């Protein structure tokens, strides 16, 4: 007979109540959002009248999880960046040169003079020695520079590969070291992008690694992807180099260990610099927008102790010589060292506007990106368009809901009302689940919910149709209802499991908007099976126990 044990009844009712209460905050989206923001700020120690007023907009004890709105609904910028991980190999190899040179210098009696040779592949270090007989010895000495790697897979692997090519020594990074470097580059890039985005203080940015060398960045509320690109696309690598000479000939061929960089502000001015920097931006501990003696915007900075010492020693030894401040391959300025600069702080002047100096300070504080990035995909959605979409989507959902409700009542009468209550609970539960798991609602996601409204009644229709049929043959209403649920079960489960399979595949393989759709569709299937099989049944049983009808009109 139609029996459901008490604890099951309680559980079903509890789940429904939970669904309703956890979906509630979404009805008061703005208020709850302001409340949540205020709570977050107050936890950081801020406390103002305005914050307290915001916090009071929503009770502290009530659920306050909200559905995240996707960029297409809230407006904002989306970028997919590719990190040039191989750039880092070059730096590593450049960094090896002094070490290799010093090691071989100690063996001068066997290998003779040491020279760095030009290499087609910048990630390869080529070194020639003047004594051809000593080359094998040189290779073995350089090989000792390789360090064993600490990794799970690369047992016995070392970070360098040293071999002989004719009368040259060729040093490259090993395969395992490249993989490890890639991983480190990606993690650093993520961290630095996160810091930069946090510096400008936008809310809830998504910064995610995708695949081996890509980073997805989504920032709600930012005006345009171009703006975001400027912020995170700048490498912001700051270095201080000794100047060899200044030139106006851009075809100057830099000698070994030298670099040619253009001036940032002066057209046609180039600087020939020593390749190895004296100090670099990694050794900065602080950078602030500032003004120079003449009141022009500038950036003041401070080095860490090691950087400060190196800077101090260099300036003491080179009074009267110019040195260049280089940012991303352009010389900001090349002042002449007037005096020894101890203490490791200084100021960068150039032709900045106030905005530029502020931006540069932000970038320097956050640190340089370890490698350059290019952008493969970018999307900007204006907040007005997002709001329009929300409005249109909600109106459409309400109208759809109303149409389905009326249709169900007209078709099934009392049972239609039961199905409608279940449908309303169903929608509440979808929103509750979306809020709890922190899923993101996108425009296709709204479409998924509307589709769920249409399809959720399917399970009920299957049961009701079955009860109708069973009424023709079964003995009594109770038996017909029971058989109806029992026989419709396999169809409901099979049908929903197959649809769920598509939702799961969409989620696994889809990206962006498709994923958002898959999430709502999948959750919709779970909640609609729950409501159709358990909630409506409980309602029917409650009703049946009170009335005990002999026949039912369905």
């Amino acid at each position, binding site marked *: 007979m139609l029996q459901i044990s008490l604890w099951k009844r309680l559980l079903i009712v509890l789940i429904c109540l939970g669904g309703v209460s956890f979906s509630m905050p979404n009805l008061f989206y703005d208020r709850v959002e302001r409340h949540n923001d205020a709570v977050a700020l107050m936890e950081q120690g801020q406390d103002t009248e305005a914050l307290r007023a915001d916090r009071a907009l929503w009770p502290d004890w009530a659920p306050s999880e909200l559905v995240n709105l996707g960029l297409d609904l809230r407006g904002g910028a989306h970028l997919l960046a590719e990190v040039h991980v191989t750039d880092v190999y070059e730096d590593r190899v450049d960094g090896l040169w002094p070490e290799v040179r010093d090691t071989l210098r100690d063996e001068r009696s066997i290998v003779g003079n040491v020279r760095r040779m030009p290499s087609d592949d910048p990630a390869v270090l080529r070194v020639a020695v003047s004594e051809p007989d000593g080359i094998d010895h040189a290779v073995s000495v350089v090989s000792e520079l390789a360090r064993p790697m600490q990794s799970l897979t690369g047992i016995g692997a070392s970070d360098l590969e040293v071999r002989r090519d004719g009368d040259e020594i060729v040093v490259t990074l090993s395969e395992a070291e490249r993989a490890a470097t890639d991983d480190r580059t990606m993690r650093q890039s993520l961290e630095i992008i996160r810091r930069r985005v946090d510096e400008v203080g936008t809310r809830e940015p998504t910064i995610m690694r995708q695949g081996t060398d890509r980073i997805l960045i989504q920032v709600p509320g930012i005006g345009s992807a171009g703006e975001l690109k400027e912020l995170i696309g700048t490498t912001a690598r700051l270095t201080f180099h000794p100047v060899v000479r200044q030139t106006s000939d851009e075809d100057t061929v830099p000698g070994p260990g030298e670099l040619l960089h253009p001036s940032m502000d002066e057209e046609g001015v180039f600087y020939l610099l020593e390749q190895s920097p004296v100090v670099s931006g990694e050794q900065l501990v602080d950078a602030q927008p500032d003004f120079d003696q003449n009141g022009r915007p500038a950036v003041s900075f401070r080095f860490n102790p090691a950087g400060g010492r190196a800077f101090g020693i260099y300036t003491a030894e080179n009074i009267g010589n110019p040195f260049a401040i280089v940012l991303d391959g352009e010389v900001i300025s090349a002042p002449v060292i007037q005096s020894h600069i101890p203490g490791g702080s200084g100021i960068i002047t150039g032709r900045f506007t106030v905005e530029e100096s502020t931006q540069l300070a932000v970038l320097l504080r956050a640190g340089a990106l370890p490698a350059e990035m290019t952008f493969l995909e970018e999307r*900007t959605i204006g907040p007005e368009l997002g709001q329009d979409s929300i409005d249109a989507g909600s109106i*459409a959902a309400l109208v759809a809901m109303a149409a389905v409700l009326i249709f169900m009542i007209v078709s099934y009468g009392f049972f239609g009302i039961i199905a409608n209550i279940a449908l309303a609970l169903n929608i509440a539960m979808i929103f509750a689940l979306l809020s709890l798991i922190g899923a993101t609602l996108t425009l296709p996601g709204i479409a998924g919910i509307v589709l769920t409204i249409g399809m959720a*009644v399917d399970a009920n229709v299957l049961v009701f149709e079955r009860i*109708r049929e069973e009424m023709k043959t079964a003995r009594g209403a109770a038996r017909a209802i029971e058989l109806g649920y029992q026989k419709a079960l396999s169809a409901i489960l*099979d049908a929903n499991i197959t649809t769920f399979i598509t939702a799961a595949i969409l989620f696994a*393989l889809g990206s962006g908007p498709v994923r958002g759709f898959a999430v709502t569709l999948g959750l919709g299937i779970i909640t609609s099976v729950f409501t159709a099989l358990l909630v409506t049944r409980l309602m029917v049983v409650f009703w049946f126990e009170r009335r005990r009808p002999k026949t039912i009109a369905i």
Partner: protein
Amino acid sequence: MRLKLVPDETHFNFLGSWRITAGFSAVLVVLSIVAFLTMGLNFGIDFRGGTSVRTEATEPVDIGAYRDAITPLGLGDVAISEVFDPTYGPDENVALIRIQAPEDGESIAPSVLDEVEQALQDYDPSLEFTSVESVGPKVSGELVQSALLAVAAALAAILFYIWLRFEWQFGIGALTALVHDVVLTIGLFSVLQIRFDLPIIAALLTIVGYSINDTVVVFDRMRENLIKYKKRELNDVMNLSLNETLSRTILTSLTTLLALGSLFVLGGDVIRGFVFAMIWGVVVGTWSSVFVAAVTVKRLGVKRDWSKGDGEKGGTQFATDT
């Protein structure tokens, strides 16, 4: 009085003229393939790469003037179209501008975008750029791949599940119906040249989901009736099953269409193509469950001796004793 769209008992001979219905479907499939091969799909930037700029102005859209403003920039292939929507007021004039992707795999450079926006605003200062999307050819190629993979994986998984739960003939029947639905949808998109973008793939898979839902309900009834009426002709049993589930088929299709219809009219132009695909899918999916899936099963024939061994498989495994 209760609304009853379908009488309590119907005796339509669904499978009687299967040659005509299946032939009709076959012709549509062939036409769709021809349309796809000759006209192709109107791929959006997700699949082709490029930049799409959505403009909104208080002045009416003048496509020619927009084009004149952009042409001097020499951006290659530029397509401009006006967007109409019943929800727009008289001062909302929306246009979509699509610019060809550069060759080097990157999305558009911000400087180029600034130039485009500047040129357009010189023509009409009230223009606002409500969305700008740019996809490099490198990513779009991958998006195509993963989309195709998703559709193929979904079809395979469903085939496997149906085969697990029913006889293999049903699996083939369901798969035929699904391929039919997907092909017809792609055909319609190429005939009408509706923009084919990433969300349309989601719509395609939803169509697959809806259609299989419908098909499974019909199959479930067939499975039950095949056990119940062991002696009756396969044709009769299948017709009986289709008639018994007819009321549900119609009702569910109607509620779903009601919901989608409201989204189509009121949901805004951004997702209209998406919703359109789903509406078409519901219609096609309902048709195919009866006239493609069932017909295929009938032509393949089903093993009727359920008495030993396989009887378990045909039963309702999920039935509980509540």
